[in-house]
């Protein structure tokens, strides 16, 4: 190696080192530690004496995949993802297309308003939404009672709770997708629309044949980000329903977290790696779905 290159290598690493040190200790290290743990019977009581821990092979993974509660959690998470992602993306896209129109006034007001839920802590969101969805003193049922309808317990019915949380998650995340779609829309050249207009195509045709195809890369980005977030569905049930009633809102991440708090570290690690696998598979799926058209 020439001395110049060696020096360049040193300079490069001197820039990389501060990040790499923290990243190794607090991110890469823990990721590896979790992988190792998933093949052991580590429990909270073993933390001080790591040599008493045994390697149990894939036992934890077998336990996870045979656990009926995990099955329930997986179904709930799948429903949340399958309904929640399209719902959130459609809402975000609609808002962005509306706001991107040249004739819209008060753009900043709309943008800040729609974005407010994104910047609000889940703890505060929970306080408000419990008031909104409460069975007796809730806002929704208060409005329904004006029309003489007795509203149900949106969070206490095992058939409605998951749906309520899906709506809440869409409300909480559509603002972020709106910003992403707005950024994407701004990269589409205006003259494409003008050309389409000259050709006499309608608004809908323009949306269908200009906006949607050119937005594919943005949709991919939005779908990947939302997929990563939604598969880790946790905070909403944690603060709103504690996974109930009757496990109807228990998610995979929540189930794994419960096992962590019971001290079953090996099981937690295996369950979270199963979740990681699902996230990677979903991401691959999005890349296939939104592959650039030839």
């Amino acid at each position, binding site marked *: 190696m020439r001395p110049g290159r060696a020096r360049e290598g040193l300079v*490069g690493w001197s820039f990389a080192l501060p990040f790499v040190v923290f990243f190794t200790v607090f991110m890469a290290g823990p990721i590896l530690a979790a992988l190792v743990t998933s093949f052991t019977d580590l429990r909270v009581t073993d933390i001080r004496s790591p040599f008493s821990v045994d390697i149990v092979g894939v036992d934890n993974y077998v336990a996870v995949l045979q656990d009926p509660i995990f099955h329930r959690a997986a179904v709930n998470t799948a429903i949340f993802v399958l309904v929640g992602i399209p719902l959130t993306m459609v809402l975000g896209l609609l808002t962005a297309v509306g706001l991107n129109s040249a004739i819209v006034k008060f753009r900043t007001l709309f943008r800040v308003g729609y974005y407010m839920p994104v910047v609000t*802590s*889940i703890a*505060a969101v929970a306080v408000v939404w419990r008031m909104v969805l409460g069975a007796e003193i809730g806002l929704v049922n208060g409005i329904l009672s004006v029309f003489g309808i007795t509203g149900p317990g949106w969070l206490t019915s095992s058939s409605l709770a998951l749906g309520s949380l899906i709506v809440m998650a869409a409300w909480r995340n559509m603002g972020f997708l709106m910003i992403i779609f707005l950024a*994407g829309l701004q990269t589409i050249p205006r003259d494409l629309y003008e050309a389409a207009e000259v050709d006499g195509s309608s608004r809908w045709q323009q949306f269908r044949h200009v906006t949607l195809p050119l937005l594919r890369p*943005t949709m991919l980005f939005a779908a990947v980000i939302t997929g*990563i977030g939604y598969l880790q569905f946790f905070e909403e049930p944690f603060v709103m329903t504690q996974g109930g009633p009757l496990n109807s809102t228990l998610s995979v991440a929540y189930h794994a*977290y419960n096992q962590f708090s019971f001290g079953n570290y090996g099981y937690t690690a295996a369950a*979270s790696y199963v979740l990681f696998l699902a996230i990677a598979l979903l991401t691959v799926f999005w890349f296939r779905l939104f592959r650039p058209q030839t």
Partner: protein
Amino acid sequence: MTAPTIPRGSHSPSQPTGHKGPGRRRGWLLHLGLLGGLILVVTPFVWMILGSFKTTAELRRVPPTWLPEQITLSNYQDLFERLDFGRYFFNSALVATAVTVGNLVFCSMLGYALAKLRFPGRRPLFLLVLTTLMVPGLVTFMPLFVLVANMGLVNTHAGLALPFVAQAFGVFLMRQFIIGIPDDLLDAARIDGAGEHYIFWRIVIPLTGPALATLAILMFLGSWNNFLWPLVVATTEDMYTLPVAIALFSTGQHETNLGLLMAGSAAALVPVLVVFVALQRFFTQGIAMTGIK
């Protein structure tokens, strides 16, 4: 609530719509739709803010009232008198500032190295950082907790902040932005004998303003609203961050005091709204820069 504005003579020059009637009706419908959506989105917040000025008795009433019948500030007074609100606020601000500064420095340095310098291991390092973006937070949660416990950092500010001072997303953002800076500019400085650290601090950093602003917003908000980690790591009341305090008081002994909770939630929202409203213009720019096109 603002009334929908009717765009009078809705033809701005950039809007080449030919027909006057349908164009105006479209503007109407568009604003009506956007306003309807906005009302649905912000109603919970309006509800919360109005609620924070109501008495406990009024908050418990069935059916609920919209406007406070008797405006009271006692909920806000209680935040400071009955709870240590200032302390939670300070904890949140300190941790969020440390996380933001850490990421601005570390991520822009590595972003520069990945974008503009050649060094052995550059590609694998970038791939490794990108891959970890997909790893669920839960994977690292348990090992991180064991690590922080063994370092003796449970219930300290360092324990709350350190795990988040170097995040993969920041590296991605900064690298994507710095790649766009022309090499000629940097080479010219190199010919003049400037070292890489001089070039980084004096040439690259001043050019990355929007990206740094975006990263700062995202990191500050992320830390300010972070919930699960501080919930587990902060074990005594003097280390609580705002979300932890709100969550614990909403399920603990203060359960019945809805007004106090609403006032706390409303007050916690103020700093993030200020930060967001002030910097929101950079935000769309910054997101557009992460290479989504």
